[in-house]
């Protein structure tokens, strides 16, 4: 019961952060929102794994964390310098 409540609150936080993903004035704002939402959903996976008493969800959460880390780091590197064509298309 209390774990269900916990999951609902964390999902509510992710929904608030989703606003920044939709209306970020810049790409980097959206990347920061993606990082926040990713870690919140990872926590939801961990809570579910503890709720069902199955250790295999934690493996999925580990792999998800690794891929989130690589994704955000690559995007931070790629958007790190201003690109002319990117602004012309917008």
């Amino acid at each position, binding site marked *: 019961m209390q774990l269900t409540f916990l999951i609902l609150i964390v999902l509510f936080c992710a929904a608030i952060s989703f606003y920044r993903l939709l209306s970020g004035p810049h790409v980097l704002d959206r990347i920061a929102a993606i990082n926040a939402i990713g870690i919140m959903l990872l926590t939801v996976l961990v809570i579910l794994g503890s709720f069902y008493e199955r250790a295999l969800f934690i493996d999925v959460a580990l792999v998800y964390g690794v891929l989130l880390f690589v994704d955000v780091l690559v995007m931070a590197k790629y958007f790190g310098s*201003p690109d002319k064509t990117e602004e012309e298309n917008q």
Partner: protein
Amino acid sequence: MIIQDILAGFLMISGVIFFLTTAIALLRFPDFFSRMHAASKCLVGGGISIIFGLIIQEGISPLSLRLLLLIIFLLITTPVVGHALTRSAYQYGYLSEMVQDDMKDLKAGNDSND
């Protein structure tokens, strides 16, 4: 048993408060650097608090060992991501009004080296 429950509940509630702080900071703060200032700290705090609460509730088991591994991983990677994002925002020139810019000389030195 009661102490265990109280400790786990306290840690989980504090983690939820950290997450709420992250969400409100992302929603309300005016510019990118202040958003990252709040978000990068509170994400580490929230995730680690909730997972640590789950460990205390669980006791010693294979599941809690993996959760400990996850805590170490989050503790290493999340500050790195925040640092890299903020750094790339500075290099992009996505800046707000600053009172003082300490990294201006550093950036000029980097450019002359290239």
